[in-house]
């Protein structure tokens, strides 16, 4: 059975590491990108099943990356969860307008993140 894949996009090494540790219990492959441009490139190449996308990033922000991904056939339907802070939450409407599927807030609440990931990927099989 092919393992599912999650693309983690954030310019913060702390957040990426945190997300990796929280998602370690899922039998999934984790791919990372550190800005919006990198995210679009990796999403097209890696075809992830889910994307966790920061909003404020260098080169291309999360909303713009989300818009680009929605214009590409292979990533048009990939669920994208935006990872936002409160200030960015005021732009949640803009986020949904750009095509994101859902959002979580920083600081990341592990239980909330796991619940959303389970919702989009299904309950993971026990990791041996």
């Amino acid at each position, binding site marked *: 059975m092919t393992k599912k894949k999650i693309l983690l996009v954030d310019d*913060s*090494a*702390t*957040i990426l*590491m*945190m997300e990796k*540790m*929280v998602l370690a*219990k899922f039998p999934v492959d984790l791919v990372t990108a550190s800005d919006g441009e990198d995210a679009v490139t990796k999403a097209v190449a890696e075809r992830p099943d889910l994307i966790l996308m920061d909003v404020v990033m260098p080169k291309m922000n999360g909303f713009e990356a989300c818009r680009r991904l929605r214009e590409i056939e292979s990533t048009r339907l990939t669920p994208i969860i935006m990872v936002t*802070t*409160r*200030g960015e*939450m005021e732009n949640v409407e803009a986020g949904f307008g750009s095509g994101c599927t859902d959002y979580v*807030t*920083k*600081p*990341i609440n*592990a*239980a909330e993140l*796991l619940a959303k990931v389970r919702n989009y990927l299904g309950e993971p099989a026990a990791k041996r």
Partner: protein
Amino acid sequence: MSGDSSQGTGYVEKVREEMQSYVNTILSDNEKLRQVLVVLQTDKLRLTEELRAAREQAAAHQAQEEQLHHRLREIGAESESFRSQFAELEAHSANLANLYVASYQLNGTLDRQAVLAAIQEIIVNLIGSEKFGVFECDGPRGELRMVVSLSGAPAETVASYPAVAAVLAGGETWIASPDATEPADAVACVPLKLDGRITGLIVIHRLLAHKAALDALDHELFSLLGTHAATALYCTALHERAPAREVPS
């Protein structure tokens, strides 16, 4: 006369025969009825026995059903307990992950700017503050010097906070009371300590608006920052003073 007499005898004989026949019929019917009665009594005994057995079986089934209901309730309670334990473990695991990430980021470099960036990332991304300052104690009198800030107040202002004075005097982390009626200058003030000596301070002025209050994990992160950030900054200073030495691989 003799003719009448023989006629009378014949009649009596006939009546006797009919009577005998009638009695025989009644006796025969009586025998049949007795046999039917025996069968019915046997049936009754059998049915009574079957009814008793059926009642016993029903009682046993009812007891078994009650046992199963009881076991079901027990399994439900066990399941709820496991679910609750699993959620606790998941939360505990997430907390440990937070602490591990914070520790790893602080101690993974000897570059001062990288350590300061790590402190800032921990405060922003793991604690969730949008307004804070990090200060080091400088000079013989230990004046505060700002080294990292996100919309934070300058050192001179921070030095006048009663909370900061209390932390500098007592060396313990100060957290604003959640019941405070007056808005405080800071939400928390964390001393950076090395061998019991205060080498700096983290002053958190405000949390992200959607974060209602500091929780147990934040207190753990403060405790970790208090020692690990101070040690990490001290190590970078040592490293800067000894530039010729190579870090052992």
